[in-house]
């Protein structure tokens, strides 16, 4: 028979000091979700089909607006660019929410959380999935925009990197927030998982500059990280340069949102463990 007493405790205490995330556990979850995409048509449709449709709709609208010959306004670049970047944001948010919901729907959540998986590893896996999704959808949309509407996203140059990263992080933060709401208030809060970003859209200056908003709403706009990305996008189109103030604004506001919303997520998880609702999620 084995003795579990002091030696194991000591060894464990030593181990606890090097308290790191494990890549193999993150990878396990990523592969688990990739298995799904391998054969699920509805999933692939959801990811690729709707963005393409949206792109076509806005693409033709932009062509029409361009025909109206408004001086100094290239609708294709401004509107299509906005459509594409906005879509990346929603992709990120959905990737995070759905990665969580998938396990709730399949009643697999407890299986995952009786393993040594940490919450941070779970989050990391969803954010990596979101990044993969953004890159895949982004590439496809960029190609379609290029071949159908002659919009070359490379005009954004290196600004593309901060744009995409900021959209990824804010989308993930909102995804975490909706996940936390579902944890707390049950799957009836699921609609939020898909609608939350629409609440943000009017104020994030996606298709129009912040300056058209009433003063009060301008303040709201500048609280939101995506605002800086879309203002930045228009600035690059107009001047070829990304003003460092906008970049800084995006980063600072994103850090604030991410910290607050992931704190809320951790907090919700703790509350749910306290209330014993983890096994009553469905």
């Amino acid at each position, binding site marked *: *028979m*084995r*003795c*579990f*007493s002091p030696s*194991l*405790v000591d060894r*464990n205490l030593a*181990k*606890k000091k090097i308290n790191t995330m*494990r890549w*193999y*556990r993150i*990878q*396990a*979850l990523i*592969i*688990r979700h990739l*298995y*799904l995409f391998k054969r*699920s048509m509805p999933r692939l449709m959801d990811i690729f089909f709707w963005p393409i449709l949206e792109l076509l709709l806005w693409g033709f609208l932009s062509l029409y607006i361009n025909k109206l010959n408004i001086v100094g306004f290239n609708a294709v670049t401004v509107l299509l660019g906005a459509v594409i970047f906005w879509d990346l944001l929603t992709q990120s948010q959905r990737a995070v929410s759905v990665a969580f919901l*998938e*396990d709730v729907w*399949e*009643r*697999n*959540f*407890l*299986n*995952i*959380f*009786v*393993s*040594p*998986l*940490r919450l941070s590893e779970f989050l990391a896996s969803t954010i990596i999935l979101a990044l993969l999704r953004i890159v895949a959808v982004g590439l496809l949309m960029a190609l379609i925009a290029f071949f159908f509407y002659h919009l070359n996203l490379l005009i954004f140059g290196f600004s593309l990197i901060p744009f995409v990263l900021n959209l990824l992080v804010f989308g993930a933060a909102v995804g975490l927030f909706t996940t936390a709401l579902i944890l707390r208030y049950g799957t009836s809060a699921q609609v939020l998982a898909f609608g939350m970003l629409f609440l943000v859209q009017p104020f994030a200056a996606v298709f129009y500059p912040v300056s058209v908003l009433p003063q009060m709403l301008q303040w709201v706009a500048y609280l939101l990280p995506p605002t800086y990305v879309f203002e930045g996008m228009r600035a690059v189109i107009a001047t070829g340069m990304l003003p460092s103030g906008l970049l800084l604004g995006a980063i600072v506001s994103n850090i604030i949102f991410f910290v607050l919303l992931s704190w809320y997520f951790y907090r919700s998880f*703790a509350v749910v*463990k*306290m*209330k*014993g609702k*983890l*096994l009553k999620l469905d």
Partner: protein
Amino acid sequence: MAILEVQDLVKEFGPVKAVNGLSFEVQEGTITGLLGPNGAGKTTTIQMILDLITPTSGTINVFGLPIHDNREEVLGKMNFSSPYVSLPGNLRVRENLATFARLYGVKDVWGKIDELADFFNIRKLLGRMTSTLSTGQLTRLNLTKALLNDPKLLLLDEPTASLDPDIADRTRKMLQRIKNERGVTILYTSHNMEEVEEICDTVIFIDQGSFKDQGTPTDLVKKYGHKDLNEVFLTIARGSEFSKEED
């Protein structure tokens, strides 16, 4: 040697005292039954041992370590299965097992799956979509998942509930094989006293969140002067209710 020690465990859900000062030990190498009427606090206790529910107070030591501060270490050597959790139906059996093998950091993922597929005789099912399995096949699959990390302690919440007598019997045999051939300690709940008598080395009775009695099925039957464990259950379960009705 106690592999699991629960001491003065309390869990309050608002006004409900689901677990009320519960203490017990589970000895290594045994199948221990955690028994009690509906609402006695069995599931709540198991979930606290798994760190899925945070106790109001009390301590839980697994392998000599407090679970809450040693989640990773302890959960890595423990596993759990129950009919109220399931593996994703939209993955193949093989994919599900590989996912959990990776989550537990199993070195030779496919080797382990092979070994357990033979043990549980599910080799033919590996390529199937999990949603197409029958209840009996799912039970075997869930047990396979629960053994992927070679756990020292296995917690099972009503593993034989809703199984037909044949599958239930096979499952019992499997639990005994898991204990005997793989040296796994099992703590499990069941409402089937015949089954408990058949496979448990020890049983722990709880009621209204408190410890009532513990012993081997044979000893308890003798102690209460009954003919079987079913009657012991009734005496323990009704004892508290009768006394409540009386006053």
